Structure formats: structure tokens, C-alpha cells
């Protein structure tokens, strides 16, 4: 089990600094999670730390591709508004 970073990532370093397993590294074009090291923080923290600090919606997914921070969940901007401004494509 491991989380993954999507191409929504902005390379802000926040996740890499808080990962208890040192599983996240700078890569091109964006940070990547080493699936051999990632534990989803089980046993260390109540929430996966990368997903708890990540400021970008849809940047972190679980093994099933489910967003840990879905659109609108961090900013409170209604998804319809995001779609209206071309900031979200719609159903994923």
C-alpha cells in the first residue's frame, strides 16, 4: 500500500518535509512517493502526513486512484465554480 502524487503537484516541498518515512523525493516533473517506503503513515499518524499538509486538491491519490483531497475540499470553492472557470474538468 502506498500513496501516489499526481501531475497536479506544484513541487512545494511541504509533503517531503513532513513524511515520517522519508519516502518522498524531488523528481521531474514533480515529487514522487517511493512505494517501497510509503506506509500511508499507518502506525505513525492518524492522517497520512503528505495528504494532511498538501495544499493542492487532487494531487495525492491512493492505490485505487481516489483523491485524498478531492476538488473543493481544501479551498471550499464549489466544484461547479471550479468547472465554470475551467479549473476542473468535471467528474474524474
Amino acid at each position, binding site marked *: 500500500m502506498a500513496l501516489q502524487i499526481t501531475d497536479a503537484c506544484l513541487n512545494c516541498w*511541504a509533503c517531503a518535509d513532513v513524511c515520517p518515512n522519508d519516502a518522498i523525493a524531488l523528481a521531474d516533473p514533480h515529487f514522487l512517493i517511493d512505494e517501497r517506503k510509503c506506509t500511508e503513515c499507518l502506525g505513525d499518524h492518524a492522517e497520512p502526513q503528505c495528504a494532511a499538509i498538501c*495544499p493542492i486538491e487532487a494531487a495525492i491519490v491512493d492505490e485505487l486512484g481516489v483523491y485524498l483531497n478531492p476538488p473543493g475540499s481544501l479551498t471550499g470553492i464549489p466544484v461547479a465554480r471550479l468547472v465554470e*472557470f475551467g479549473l476542473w474538468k468535471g467528474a474524474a
Partner: protein
Amino acid sequence: MELPVIANTAAGGGCSTSGCGTAPDALGHLPDDIRARVQDHPCYSEEAHHYFARMHVAVAPACNIQCNYCNRKYDCANESRPGVVSELLSPDQAIRKVLAVAAAIPQMSVLGVAGPGDPLANPARTFEIFRQLSERAPDIKLCLSTNGLKLPMYVDEIARHNIDHVTITINCVDPEVGAMIYPWIFWQNRRVRGVEAARILIEQQQKGLEMLTARGILVKVNSVLIPGVNDQHLKEVSKVVKAKGAFLHNVMPLIAEAEHGTYYGLMGQASPTAAQLQELQDACAGDMAMMRHCRQCRADAVGILGEDRGAEFTMDRIDALTLAEIDYESAMVRRKEVHDAIIDQLDQQREARRIPPMPPVLGAVADEMPAAPRPTLRPVLMAVAGKNGVVAEHFGHAREFLVYEASPTGVRFIGHRKTDLYCAGIETCGEGDAAQESVLDKTIAALSGCEVVLCSRIGFEPWGKLEASGIVPNGEHAMEPIEDAVMAVYQEMAASGKLADPAPSRKAA
């Protein structure tokens, strides 16, 4: 220098405007030791900002809170606003850049780490810069700008690195207000939301403020004015932070445009008008020193405020330089000479203003009516296309106008109004439409509230449009010191009887 700010000086502080020479800015009422510490800091001193340069290095990308006015995803080359940065630097690159810039721009006095995230959410990178620079460039002042969440944890380390200025952004002291500004914070390994998040943030900010001032570290407080959210509340914020020892309060206007992708931008939150901002700054000024020359610069700004030179120092160029190529010793000697010369010049200007002459015309007006109470001449706002303290720019070339208030008691700097708003928007982003408001109309709208605009020259078309919207263009004071020119125009208005009446109602621009 040319910015005597009268209303900003604290009453009864034993230091009237004339007594302090100029009280050149909001700093006039400060104790001498603090004034001495900030006199070469362009971000704190209205007089210093014309002469001294600063730079920010973007080494702190991570953030630990979300503000509703921020979305770092949308970085556009036209944008100049906090939190935005085009090039992130490693600590080593940043050191090279600072040393190269400080060698090339001897006016440089200050290095700040301000983002684009929060410096204290990037402690290793941030403190590495400070550690290396205090060794290699001991003459450069170091400062730090933070949201305050981690401040109590790092106060000792801040003190250890000889950082003597810290800016904390404090938008509220009430968690209910905070919940409308901050959707979440990252705190003790959890994402905390809502009122609870705001409560923790406020608690840490206030604690950090107290700890810093207790150690003698200068603290400036930045607040973002968000109409309908914290506008009235900021008066309370000003009182509280002053009581806890902050030496300066900088109220900045919210920047909210849909194209920035922020919550406020997309949800249609209004930005304050220039008049709203000024009203609030005036209301807070009774409580503490207010700062009015802030340019809300980017986290990678370089040079004199308002004249960014970042483009000259891109990483390509810095990477081509090795540290050995920078003759650091002689650069430091040269900086010392340049800084001393500037401070001498500022001292002389301050001395020259120690006894401001009574404006002759206003004196005459008062003399003619000895029996009546002194006529109450209304104050007038004037916009100036100025540079380096003089009326220097062509109306059409001015990227910003400085706004001054003239009244019988003198001339005071009120603020600045940009003409090429943060993002130049439609014109430069390519979706031009003939129906769009023209640049000139926008400029005129930005000058709302001003009755006169002073510039070195002005074209025929803007002249007519300005007059039609009730603003009198004036090109007769080119290259004169700004406040002399503003006072001269005010005296002319007084002499022609234009000031006894209320301000003319303005036609729609």
C-alpha cells in the same frame, strides 16, 4: 526625505512633525534606537525606500496554512503579488544570488525570506540561508516574514541568527473572523479546519509576537484588508498588536481576481477601493504607526521598492557565476560607503525640514480675517507621477501614482495607486475586446478621490478626459520636489477660493 507624514505621528509623543524633522514616515514617533535600526530598511522606512534596496530569496516553498486570498498554482509573469514566485532557489543558489546582487547593487541593505510559502514551514532551508549570510555578508540585515503559526517554536533560533526584523501577517484576533479567512492549518500532524484552526493560528501568532518583542526583535504586522470580513475588525487588531509591542502596522489591500484562482477571487469577494484602504489606515493611525508605501512585492523581488530588477538576476546568470568571481570584500567596502552617504543625505534632509516654513498664502488668508476663526480650508487629495521624490514622470508612463493629502497643516503621504494593476489582465493576456475599459479609463478610475494630478508632462487626450472626470491635470511643477509642488498647488487653490467649498461632486469616470 520628501515624505513628511503628519497625521501618522503619535500625538503627545514629545515629537511633533517639525520636531522630528519630517517624521518622514510612520516612524517619526519611534524611539531613536528603533529609528536608527530601521532607517536603512526600505520596507519599513518611507524615506529609505527611495534609496536603499532589498531582495527576497524564494527558498521557502512549503506552507502550513491556507489563506482564502492565496493560490500559488497560478503564477503569471505579469503578476506582482505576495506568494507568487517564478523561480525557486536552493539555499546554495540563494546565497550566490544574494552575494552577486549585493555586489552589483551597493544600495542593497536587506535580505528577506518571505516565501513563496512560509519561511518557518521550511526551517532547514530558511535558517541555512540566514546562517551562511550572517557569516559571509554581516552588513546585510536579515529579515523574515511569516504567518506566525510556528513562530513560538523558532523564536530562539531567529534570535540566534541575528535576525532583527520579523513581519507577521495577522488578519484577525477573533477566531470567528479567522474562520472566514483561513480554511485550514496543518498543526501537530493534522489538518485542522474552521474556527478551531483560526483559534490555534491566532494563539500562536500572538504568543510569537510577545516572545519576539520580549527579545528586542522588531516586529511589523501585516494585515490584509478584506471588505466585509475583517475591515472593521482591523482596528481592534491594530490596538492589540500595538499593545504587544509591534512597531509598525501595514494594512494592505486584498488582491482578488478570478484569474488568480483564489477562493476570494472565484467567489467574487470585493477588493477594497483606495478610499476604503485609506479610511482604515487613517482609523488605525490613531493607535499606531501605519505604513503606507508597501508595494506588496513578490517573494523573489530584487532592488528598490517599485522598481524590480529581478529579471537581471535570473538563475541562469547566477549559475554562471562562481563565488570566487565575486570580489566580496571590496563589494562590502563599497556598500559601506554608499550606505553612509545615503544616511548622511537623509540626515541633512531631515535637518533642513526641522522648521517647516509657514505656507505664505495660507498665512495671508488667515491674516486677512483676524477676527474670524481661521477659515477651515478643506484638505485635497492629489496624485503625483513621481520618482525619487520629485514630480518626474509623464502621465502616460507612470505605473503608479503617489497620493498626497494637502491641508493647512502640511502635506502628508497617503498611499500609492497602481495603474497597471497587479496582473495587466485583458490587454496582455490576449482576450482583448473593444468594449473593454481602456487603460486610460482604468487609470482615471484608480485616481478616484483625487482633485489634481501632478506629472511632468501629459498628452492631449488624457488631459481632456481627466478634466471631464473632475481631476485637474497639472504639468507646471515638473522636476520639483513632490511636497513643495503639492503645497504650491494647494496654495493656488486656496488663493482662488476653491477650498472653502466642499469638494466638487465628481462626474462618473
